[in-house]
């Protein structure tokens, strides 16, 4: 079957660890051919033979993908292909659901922590891996308290330190200038786009290592979408980003690397520029050019 071969090819092409001397973090060389530059990056999370089951249903099938550090990796594919399921593995969201099971590993570097390992506390995982959802979901609290919430959970009580960190997170999410004079107003009074950026600020406040975005702009207008996309592009300076999107142009605009999934399998993984100009697999080409269905 083409997809099985594709999966192996994608893994072989993408996952080519070449450890640097004196460093435990694997490096990855992604997307090399005669016309493109070789890029060797640190791997932030190495997904190795990951399968996931809802009861007897195998929703993810032996995925192997290197998630490059401080890069934006987009996951695309038709509904039901497993991209959201894949994203939710990273912060153990599936643990909240009964009768689910992981196989394989997601190794977070540089400390080699298997995020889905049986002895790993999901709360600890969620402290390190933030998530932003499709629909903005601020708490019914003030703007300030929304961002301070995670810090308070971590035991930060010093008011000056809290204020400083809240400002930093709000600046990081490009929201500070719009809310600095109404930090004590309800977060529910913000516009949809502002709420989404507040949720990003809330996630950033606890300095996550990876930030997961599950269709973060599908409920927003084009201007708010552009602001979130611009934000995602700048976030790569401080955090590794994984984004699920149905919007092909958005994946092309914001991602450095793109993975195309179908029926729970990885069909192709490569630089976004390669995927959107000359994908190697026909299935990828058919999907991104709108030939499915």
């Amino acid at each position, binding site marked *: 079957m083409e997809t099985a071969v594709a999966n192996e090819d994608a893994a072989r092409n993408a996952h080519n660890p070449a450890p640097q001397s004196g460093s435990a973090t694997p490096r990855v060389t992604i997307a090399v051919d005669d*016309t493109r530059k070789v890029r060797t990056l640190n791997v932030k999370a190495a997904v190795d033979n990951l399968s996931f089951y809802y009861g007897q249903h195998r929703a993810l099938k032996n995925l192997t993908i290197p998630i490059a550090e401080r890069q934006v990796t987009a996951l695309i594919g038709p509904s039901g292909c497993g991209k959201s399921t894949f994203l939710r593995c990273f912060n153990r969201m599936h643990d909240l659901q009964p009768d689910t099971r992981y196989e394989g590993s997601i190794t977070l570097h540089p400390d080699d922590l298997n995020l889905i390992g049986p002895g790993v506390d999901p709360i600890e995982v969620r402290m390190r891996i933030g998530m932003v959802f499709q629909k903005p979901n601020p708490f019914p609290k003030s703007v300030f308290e929304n961002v301070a919430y995670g810090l308070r959970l971590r035991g930060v009580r010093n008011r000056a330190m809290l204020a400083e960190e809240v400002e930093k997170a709000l600046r990081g999410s490009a929201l500070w200038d719009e809310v600095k004079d109404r930090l004590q107003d309800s977060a529910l009074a913000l516009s949809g786009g502002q709420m989404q950026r507040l949720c990003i600020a809330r996630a950033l406040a606890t300095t996550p290592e990876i930030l997961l975005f599950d269709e973060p702009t599908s409920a927003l207008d084009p201007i708010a979408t552009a602001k979130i996309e611009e934000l995602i592009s700048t976030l790569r300076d401080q955090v590794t980003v994984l984004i699920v999107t149905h919007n*092909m*142009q958005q994946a*092309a605009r914001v991602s450095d690397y793109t993975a195309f999934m179908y029926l729970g399998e990885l069909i192709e993984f490569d630089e976004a520029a390669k995927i*959107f*100009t*000359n*994908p190697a697999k*026909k299935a*990828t*080409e*058919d999907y*991104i*050019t*709108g*030939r*499915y*269905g």
Partner: protein
Amino acid sequence: MPSDPVEGHTAKAFDGALTQLRLHAVGMGGLVIDQVSTAVRALLEADANLAQTVLARESQVNDLERAVDREAFELIALHQPVAGDLRMATAVSRMTVELERAGDESKKIARFAGRMASGEPQGPVRAVARYLQHMADLTTGMLRDAVRSLDESNSDLAERVRARDSELDAEFAAALRQLLTLAMQDQRYLGVTIDTVFALKGLERIGDHAKNIAEQVVFIASGRDMRHKKSVGQASA
């Protein structure tokens, strides 16, 4: 799954837009091919009417260049194509430039033919008439196959067009030697000899344009950028 790269989209309007774009480029190709063969016939037969036909149709070629390029531009803006569809839109846009330049070369040959018809000495043209005819056959053949390869999405045919360019170059070099010999023997017709060289060079350039179009067809099919690469059989520079 259909093998034609312009078909099979869920949005049938997009199929239609791509098909129209390709159809218009192929139509422009047909007009340019006729411009080339008519211009050379006008020259060889010193026929003022044929020369005038080419010159009168030149504006049609220019109009088509603008129209097809605009169509490709709008297709990109309105449909935001990616992968093979994007390659088709950008490649067709580049092809219109090649076709328009081939049309320009025909126009220059037609102008020369007009001067021949109005009494300029025909010695130099007659001396290389065989070469002119052969080069015209080669260039129109290359153009025809390049345009056909676009129409049929046939990258094998496009590859063969690229390989034929060296034959045209060799023919041009041989014609040039012939004209040099003539110029050294009889310097009275130097002006016409130079014009004849330009006509030969024009045909050689049209062959280059056909090759460039063929390279774009390969690009559409595979994403390979063949520009400035030697084809099989060509010696490296």
